[in-house]
């Protein structure tokens, strides 16, 4: 039983890293990134492939942060001058292109068969100690990410991205180029997603394209909207609720006769949609009371 909770803890922290990136991008800057999972996928494949070539895990993790971060730069430069809603569509399209590429680049990625046998972290440990070591590591990285985002939020850079969220035209009138800030924000969020994905790949040890569908992006959106999009504490609480929901819904179908596991996936998507609608209408500030007016 404790192994089960450790496993949930690890996956929660991975989602939390994703949520922190989106808090920076949407909560603070107002960027509507619907393609978060695309950067997550790039990081996972980067670290998995490198480690299978014998690259040590610390280096492959580093690459899993850097490669998505660099990928964010051209995406940002091309699309960040677009209106917000077009940016959302471009990022969603980007994540689907990533999935199409990894599905079809069979020689490199194994196509739909995916990549099995990805090296675990801490090969010297087994069982619960190995799990706990992973939990501690991802926990420390998440803490570092929280520290970094708090630091950014309270800095002159953080002030300016919140100014961009509030009024981009005024930012231009004051002599600053919003795109320069947004590109950096997109890259940091992508790097966080990349690190999260390296933990994911080396924890699950098996990745296939189906793990990187847009639903993952929207789970993270659900977490930050429930928690309160502009608050870092909101990302933390929202992720906890998301995990409770994802795990809880596994048990629900025991009580719903005639609902198979396959049906349950659809029921879950329906509930995600319903929760998002209810929150946006009834409590747009999220549970942590985000007072930002958009």
């Amino acid at each position: 039983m404790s192994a089960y909770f450790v496993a949930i803890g690890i996956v929660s922290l991975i989602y939390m890293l994703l949520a922190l990136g989106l808090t920076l991008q949407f909560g603070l800057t107002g960027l509507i990134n619907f393609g978060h999972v695309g950067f997550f996928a790039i990081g996972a494949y980067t670290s998995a492939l490198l480690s299978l070539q014998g690259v040590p895990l610390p280096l492959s993790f580093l690459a899993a942060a850097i490669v998505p971060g660099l990928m964010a730069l051209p995406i940002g430069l091309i699309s960040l001058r677009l209106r917000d809603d077009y940016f959302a569509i471009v990022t969603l399209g980007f994540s689907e292109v990533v999935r199409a590429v990894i599905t079809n680049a069979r020689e490199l990625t194994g196509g739909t068969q995916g990549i099995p046998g990805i090296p675990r972290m801490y090969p010297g440990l087994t069982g619960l100690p190995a799990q706990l070591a992973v939990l501690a590591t991802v926990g420390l990285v998440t803490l570092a990410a929280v520290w970094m985002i708090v630091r950014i939020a309270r800095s002159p850079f953080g002030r300016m991205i919140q100014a961009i969220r509030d009024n981009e035209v005024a930012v231009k009138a004051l002599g600053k180029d919003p795109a320069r800030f947004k590109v950096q924000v997109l890259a940091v969020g992508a790097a966080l997603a990349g690190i999260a994905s390296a933990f994911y790949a080396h924890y699950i040890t098996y990745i296939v394209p189906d793990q990187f569908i847009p639903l993952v992006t929207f789970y993270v959106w659900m977490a930050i909207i429930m928690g309160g999009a502009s608050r870092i504490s909101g990302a933390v609480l929202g992720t906890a609720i998301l995990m409770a929901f994802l795990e809880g819904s596994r048990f629900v179908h025991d009580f719903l006769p005639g609902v198979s596991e396959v049906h349950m996936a659809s029921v879950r998507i329906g509930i995600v949609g319903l929760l998002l609608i209810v929150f946006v209408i009834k409590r747009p500030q999220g549970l942590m009371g985000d007072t930002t007016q958009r």
Partner: protein
Amino acid sequence: MTLEVRDIVMNFGGFRALDGVSLTVPAGGLVGLIGPNGAGKSTLFAIMSGFQTQDAGAVLLDGRPLDALAAPARARAGLVRTFQVPREFRNLTVRQNLLAAAPGQTGENLLGLFFQPGRVAREEAVIARRAEETLRLLKLAPVADQPARQLSGGQKKLLELGRALMLDPRFVLLDEPFAGVNPVLIGEIVARIRELNAAGIGFLIIEHDLEALTRLVPYLAVLDRGRIIAQGGPDAVLTDAAVREAYLGGVA
């Protein structure tokens, strides 16, 4: 050191919004721009500040064309505008609004932020003092730590002026600084603009409140249907027959 627009033409579809507008604001000048609604005043501001691109003509700062510069670069060059409808950063405090406007901050770059913390702190201290002065000058100190969205319309106008001042501008384009502002506060704004002008900042001011404007500016230009129909001292301009016909016809 002058701000000049020369033969500006701007069409919106088949409508000619500006039809060969030329106007000069000398260094440290104080010029009012008036005209009926739809005359093209705000369009002219948008073109001067780089938010719209004219079909013909040029905007010059010190005789140097600005046309290749995007809006942010023009602000950095010393030509800063405000907006008719205030564009405050509504979730930031009044003080943060001013700090955000300060130019050249190392801490606005992620690399600078994490690798030059000492320099960031020193710069922040300098701009914080600057923001304090501006808050005092504009009498916004009592509301410094309130979110800007809570300000009255008039206070938002002052905040927009304050943000512009943080850039050390040479010319400020004020779009209706008195609109929606109570008479007491108008007096304050007039006094502040006079002080700043005496310190060498040039102003071009769009305003419908002629009484307040003529108290402030020694020079008026009148825009009507995309053309400058008169310019000069307020007394001469406001008694000009064409101006009375076009602009004050209903009033006189």
